[in-house]
């Protein structure tokens, strides 16, 4: 069954009705529930839950420690290409963004160099990223990149354009552990308004991509909405439905959620549905109460001060020392187009110290070569 039918059963009006009539009693009931329903999640996301944020935070912390202990996994992104044929209004890589900076795809030799640089920092989990250019940056190239990265790291994931199941299988055979793929927004109209062309303009194909990755055997599926594209309460409820769907369909894959928030966008795009810090925290806390066993990823898009505060509130995985340019770690990358400007510019050592300072253990390795299908 496709998640489309799940989402179609929950049109905006039905979701708005869920959180529209919520009062303090519903919020308290949701806080105390042992197994939380979508109605409970709507209550926790509602304006009525604002006065209860501290209670939400306590419960979120308790559930996270129960499932993950006081540990934070570390990962780093490696951008291997910034060539992109899609045109997403909010993205620095988009073909129509007007940027003049250089676009390039790393050679296998350069991928080795990037991997060496990050492995020397201690990283064991990395995320390979590309734009959407199936012609120039095809599945065979990405498979080669995964295989190279696997020589250096215990865990290799990708954040690339949506693929067919057979393509995911090919990457899986090269040692792929995880797929990160954000739906950006679940609202069809908002989706169409910002994704102008390329494979990404096909809403349905992207929506079903994580199901295909799970079927191909991929162990970690990471999902998220791009906060700022649409009414966040609706998008988060749809995300939660999608997550529950994946937990049933891909029961052998671990699920994690990311919280990418639009901050710096190209000139042609203005953020219409801004998400404040309080909104972001409420989203994380409410989702933790709804999905106690899901991993929560937090990237360097968010500033250091906020990231440190979020560690004890449900985060389980953080990136550190990131560069969003191809070649950003080892080769000179001045003048090379970056996807977005990062906020937390601390190096991995400083992030590790910050994690320890709040009483958490930084975890570098959480996967093993013995799991390879070779």
């Amino acid at each position: 069954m496709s998640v489309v039918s799940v989402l179609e059963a929950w049109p905006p009006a039905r979701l708005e009705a869920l959180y529209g009539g919520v009062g303090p009693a519903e919020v308290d009931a949701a806080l105390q529930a042992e197994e939380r329903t979508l109605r409970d999640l709507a209550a926790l996301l509602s304006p009525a839950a604002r006065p209860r944020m501290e209670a939400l935070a306590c419960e979120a912390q308790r559930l996270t420690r129960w499932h993950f202990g006081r540990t934070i996994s570390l990962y780093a992104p490696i951008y291997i290409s910034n060539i992109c044929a899609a045109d997403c209004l909010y993205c620095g890589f988009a073909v129509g963004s007007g940027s003049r900076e250089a676009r390039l795809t790393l050679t296998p030799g350069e991928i080795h160099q990037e991997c060496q640089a990050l492995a020397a920092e201690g990283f064991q989990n990395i995320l390979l990223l590309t734009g959407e250019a199936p012609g120039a940056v095809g599945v065979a190239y990405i498979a080669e990149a995964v295989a190279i990265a696997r020589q250096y790291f215990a865990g290799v994931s990708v954040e690339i354009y949506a693929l067919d199941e057979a393509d995911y299988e090919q990457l899986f055979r090269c040692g792929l552990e995880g797929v990160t793929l954000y739906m950006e927004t679940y609202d069809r109209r908002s989706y169409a308004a910002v994704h102008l062309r390329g494979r990404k303009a096909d809403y349905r194909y992207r929506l079903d991509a994580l199901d295909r990755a799970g079927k191909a055997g991929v162990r970690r599926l990471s999902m998220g909405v791009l906060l700022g594209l649409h009414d966040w309460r609706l998008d988060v409820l749809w995300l939660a439905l999608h997550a529950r769907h994946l937990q049933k369909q891909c029961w052998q894959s671990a699920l994690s959620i990311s919280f990418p928030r639009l901050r710096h966008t190209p000139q042609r795009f203005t953020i219409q549905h801004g998400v404040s810090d309080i909104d972001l925290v409420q989203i994380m806390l409410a989702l933790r109460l709804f999905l106690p066993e899901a991993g929560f990823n937090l990237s360097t898009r968010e500033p250091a001060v906020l990231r440190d505060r979020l560690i004890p509130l449900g985060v389980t995985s953080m990136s550190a020392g990131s560069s969003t340019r191809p070649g950003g770690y080892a080769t000179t990358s001045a003048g090379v187009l970056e996807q977005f400007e990062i906020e937390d510019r601390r190096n991995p050592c400083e992030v590790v110290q910050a994690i320890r300072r709040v009483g958490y253990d930084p975890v570098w390795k959480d996967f093993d070569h013995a799991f390879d299908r070779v």
Partner: protein
Amino acid sequence: MDDPLIIAGRAFQSRLLIGTGKFPSAQSLREAIDASGAEIVTVALRRVDLEHPEEEGILSGIDPDKQLILPNTSGARNAEEAIRLAKLSRASGLAPWVKLELTPEPRYLLPDPVETLKAAAVLVKEGFVVLPYIQADPVLAKRLEEIGTATVMPLGAPIGSNRGLKTRDMLRIIIEQANVPVVVDAGLGAPSHTAEAMEMGSDAVLVNTALADATDHGAMARAFALATEAGRMAYRAGLGPQRESAEASSPLTGFLFEEPSAEGTQP
């Protein structure tokens, strides 16, 4: 009291095994291990780099002279992966012991009985001392014992859930039938849970989350160690059976044993 736990011919004074996940630091893990007196400490192979151990990593919390490192295969989804992990750990120089954890679904981490049995058969043949983590399934426990596992490790409740002995009735059957040590693993959230498991006749218990999550790791580990000992001692001493209600008087049959009253009750 000389009452060692014997696993695969090796004697251990402590009947409390410790898991090493979820601790906030290597220091806190060390405190817990020291205070617990544990002699068997299990380590997830997916979490350690055996060739390049981290300075502040899990292995730095363990003293190999005092504790047996029991590698576990957590993260493995099928027999093939678990077998490969076990072989890698033996090749790296660790003792050929393995705690078999085959948990194909990541939410509740429940063990896969089919793959566990398959992997155990192969590993036993290859000379490993195999300690399988299993659902509290008495028949599976017997099947594993028959193929030569060193223990069985049935769960009390899902890993990390701190819910205690939810599988109590099945555990009782496993303990009654076992010819190998029964180690209750997973779900033990309070010292009273471990005491209860030991009073029932479990040979040992394994605890992790409850220690990792404590504020004072050492104190909590000590509490679990004492409860384990107390439960064992009570089991050896022979606990009286529990009753639903008090049985002090005999309102129904007492008349049979009463002295006849002055008026007499007989015709």
